[in-house]
């Protein structure tokens, strides 16, 4: 890609504000909880107070008799269909059938004329529980004789094994081997918008319409239809504005099914909005993990072999368990060259809320472990952390030991730039007491390509008014994908961004899209939009050329016009061109269709075979500068650095927003965000006691430019939404070690815990 071509770009690569920014700024954006319909009912859900219990008897008769209550449903009143976002891991009911498995598990739901009456009705439902022994720690859960949560041996719900090279031989050749153990915690997504849904079942047509705060409208349609035993064609899911997701709105939850079922029973629309406590304790969080990693290296620091043993605390349900473990496996294979690797991963049921996808999805835990160990190995060998990373960094075009295609890779460059941004050499040399700098690195993917159904479609319509209508199934979760996709359409068709009208994420109007996860939206949906725009352009081109008496090759699309290169006066507006097509007997409006699916292998075969999990990979280095207060154990992060090879930045302003947010979320993972659970009950289920960063906690955030073009991505783009979250916690931990000599092996780094470690070191 020459710079000249990039200079020709019209909207791509520009710092353009969100197309829905003014609406959001005015308070006019409507989120699921803002929606209202005539005769709307409020729904509420009754939850288990016990971590593990048999449902002996549920009596809802008193609740049903309460004035204003329109329907009450229990596990017996809703189709008994097991669901799950990953079909082979399905293990949940919309409402509990025989047992409840964690504090908060759903037992019954009511619909009433207002929220208060719905709450009152919950109090009138009588539930008799027979408490069962519960288990909260994955190691206890695996022990012989532990109570079984689902009927799987040792509560091991999933295990994966990924191996390549010759691990035994690799360790045999190693000149230095170390084995370390790292522990990570549960982290909550905390989007500011709690989970919410409005469901409206039209009895006359037997059609269900659902407005849901969800990252995956098409999956919701499919699973709602299956679970409620409705034809998929009778279910429509619309995603309104979404108030943040970070993976927490990928999964289906009880509210989606209950609102729909309550609406079906009452013939009235039903709204359910989770309280913050429900959002925090009955949806998902980042899996707590224990990661044991053994690494063998040559004396010069070259990695030879690694053996990971990973135990994830799954909580009561699978959610994305097999995907999460697979991703954990795949992203220890990037960004370094590890010729021989074995990973054994286990997902264990416990009587706690379930873990699930969260920004980085299984990867931040793994990289915290190895990026920390990398620094430990460097110290053992007398190497600099930058040096050992550069020695092992994978390079563009290099053959990957697990046969990943490293088409573009700015990794080494990112290490160097991050070190420079931290004034690495001076800081490491100066060795100021209680001040330190550290690095963490990451490789990530641009949408998973190992599932055949994960393709994106797009439709571009050009009408006689000259405007372009873009239909995309992609779900903007607040990151700005609508803006980016509109930019791509505008670029390809040479129209102003303002002339692109966009309808997105409505399963009845927009083409199939798997949704927002796995950092695939820009890459996958962006390619689809570009293909759709190209197809529309092609349809218009021939007629326009005939009208302008020019060769199609000589025509340029720019400023909403089609004109002859070099003679801009010889041209048509896009609207005029559509009319020319119509007068020539061609069907209008002009419609272009695009569908993008990266080269695919079937699900999970990649655990036993070699090959790509994604069509492209991003690479990044994160840096941290910290100051430690030895008297109090307080760690003050002074600066965070992100150097991210995300390919072409379609919109640098929005990319910075992703990277800033990722850095701060990673800092939260490092420095204090956690759930305090006692017998499976969260003791801090609110935003006062679950502490996320405020404006007062923000260090200098330094986003350093990279310039990479990946030929498979739309206009060369790769991933930017998740990868940077991954290396922040180890960068901070490594900086703390540099500052104090205390090695952090457990997250989060709490003041009291860290103070104890400091005192131990002094003694």
């Amino acid at each position, binding site marked *: 890609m020459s710079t000249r071509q990039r200079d020709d770009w019209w909207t791509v690569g520009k710092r353009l504000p969100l197309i829905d920014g003014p609406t959001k700024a005015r308070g006019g954006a*409507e989120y699921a909880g803002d929606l209202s319909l005539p005769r709307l009912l409020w729904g509420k859900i009754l939850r288990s107070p016990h971590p593990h219990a048999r449902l002996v008897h549920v009596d809802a008769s008193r609740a049903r008799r309460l004035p204003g209550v329109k329907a009450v449903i229990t596990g017996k009143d809703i189709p008994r269909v097991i669901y799950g976002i990953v079909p082979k891991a399905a293990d949940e009911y919309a409402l509990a059938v025989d047992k409840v498995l964690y504090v908060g598990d759903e037992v019954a739901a009511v619909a009433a004329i207002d929220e208060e009456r719905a709450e009152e009705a919950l109090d009138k439902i009588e539930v008799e529980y027979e408490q069962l022994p519960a288990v909260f720690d994955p190691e206890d859960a695996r022990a012989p004789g532990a109570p079984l949560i689902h009927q799987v041996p040792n509560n091991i719900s999933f295990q994966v094994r990924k191996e390549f090279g010759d691990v035994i031989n690799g360790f045999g050749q190693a000149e230095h081997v170390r084995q370390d153990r790292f522990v990570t915690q549960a982290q909550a997504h905390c989007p500011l918008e709690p989970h919410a849904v409005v469901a409206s079942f039209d009895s006359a047509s037997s059609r269900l319409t659902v407005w849901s705060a969800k990252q995956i409208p098409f999956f919701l349609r499919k699973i709602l239809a299956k679970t409620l035993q409705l034809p998929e064609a009778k279910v429509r899911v619309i995603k309104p504005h979404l108030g943040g997701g970070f993976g927490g709105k990928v999964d289906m939850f009880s509210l989606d099914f209950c609102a729909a079922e309550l609406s079906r029973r009452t013939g009235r629309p039903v709204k359910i909005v989770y309280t913050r406590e429900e959002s925090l304790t009955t949806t998902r969080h980042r899996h707590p993990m224990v990661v044991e990693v053994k690494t063998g290296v040559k004396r010069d620091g070259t990695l030879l072999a690694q053996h990971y043993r990973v135990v994830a605390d799954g909580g009561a349900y699978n959610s994305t368990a097999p995907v999460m473990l697979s991703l954990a496996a795949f992203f220890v294979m990037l960004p370094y060259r590890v010729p021989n690797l074995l990973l054994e991963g286990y997902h264990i049921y416990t009587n706690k809320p379930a873990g699930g996808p969260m920004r980085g999805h299984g990867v931040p835990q793994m990289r915290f472990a190895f990026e920390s160990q990398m620094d430990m190995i460097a110290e053992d060998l007398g190497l600099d952390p930058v040096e050992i990373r550069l020695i092992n960094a994978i390079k563009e075009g290099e053959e990957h030991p697990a046969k990943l295609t490293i088409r573009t890779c700015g990794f080494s460059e990112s290490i160097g730039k991050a070190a420079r941004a931290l004034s690495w050499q001076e800081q490491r040399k100066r060795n100021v007491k209680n001040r330190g700098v550290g690095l963490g690195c990451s490789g990530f993917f641009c949408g998973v390509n190992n599932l055949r159904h994960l393709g994106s479609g797009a439709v571009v319509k050009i009408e006689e008014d000259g405007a372009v209508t873009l239909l995309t199934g992609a779900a903007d979760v607040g990151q700005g994908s609508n803006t980016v996709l509109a930019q791509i359409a505008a670029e390809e068709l040479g129209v102003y961004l303002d002339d692109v009208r966009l309808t997105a994420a409505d399963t009845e109007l927009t083409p199939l899209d798997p949704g927002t996860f796995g950092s695939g939206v820009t890459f996958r949906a962006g390619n689809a939009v570009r293909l759709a725009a190209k197809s529309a352009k092609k349809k218009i081109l021939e007629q326009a050329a005939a009208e302008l008496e020019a060769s199609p090759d000589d025509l340029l699309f720019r400023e909403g016009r089609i004109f002859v290169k070099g003679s801009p006066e010889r041209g048509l507006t896009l609207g005029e061109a559509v009319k020319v097509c119509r007068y020539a007997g061609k069907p209008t409006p002009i419609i272009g269709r695009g569908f993008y699916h990266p080269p695919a292998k079937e699900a999970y075969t990649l655990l036993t075979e070699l090959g790509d999990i994604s069509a492209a990979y991003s690479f990044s280095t994160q840096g941290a500068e910290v100051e430690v207060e030895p008297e109090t154990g307080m760690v003050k992060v002074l600066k965070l650095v992100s150097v991210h090879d995300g390919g072409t930045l379609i919109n640098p302003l929005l990319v910075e927003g992703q990277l800033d947010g990722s850095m701060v979320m990673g800092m939260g993972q490092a420095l204090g965000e956690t759930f305090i659970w006692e017998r499976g009950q969260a003791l801090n289920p609110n935003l006062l006691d679950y502490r996320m960063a405020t404006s007062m906690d923000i260090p200098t955030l330094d986003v350093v430019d990279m310039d990479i073009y990946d030929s498979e991505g739309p206009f060369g783009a790769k991933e930017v939404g998740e990868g940077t979250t991954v290396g922040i916690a180890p960068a901070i931990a490594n900086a703390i070690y540099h500052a104090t000599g205390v090695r952090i092996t457990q997250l989060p780094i709490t003041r009291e815990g860290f103070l104890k470690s400091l005192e131990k070191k002094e003694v």
Partner: protein
Amino acid sequence: MKKLIELNVNSEIYEVAIDPHRSLLEVLRETIGLTGSKEGCGLGACGACTVLIDGDPALACLTLADRCVGHEILTIEGLAKPDALHPIQKAAVKFGAIQCGYCTPGWIMSSYSLLARNPKPTRDDIVRGIAGNLCRCTGYVKIIEAIDEAAKEMSASG
């Protein structure tokens, strides 16, 4: 027993019949239909419901609507003119200070009040001015930049 009250919201008088224990946030959103103020936590921890009462920021989820009779309430919907965003809103859009938009009304109201009291805030004043408004998307940096820019623009235009 419902009570009939008059509320002055964005310089318009709304006559509403409410249960006296209703929060201002519930009445704004459900009775009056102004849904720009958001509920993020329901206990005053996140600031998404921030409105101004007689110019001072207040958490609408913790304020009884009945106690607002006789006071001037300003919500996010009252800030822009039909054809022009308020300078804070304009800067919020331009500087990428908005992502999902759910916390946006809250911090815009907090900063509006800040700039009314302190037209030339330091960076630290801004940081403190929005310390009660949680945001999970942006990492706050672009929000701080936007408020700073708006302050400069408002000072310049008097």
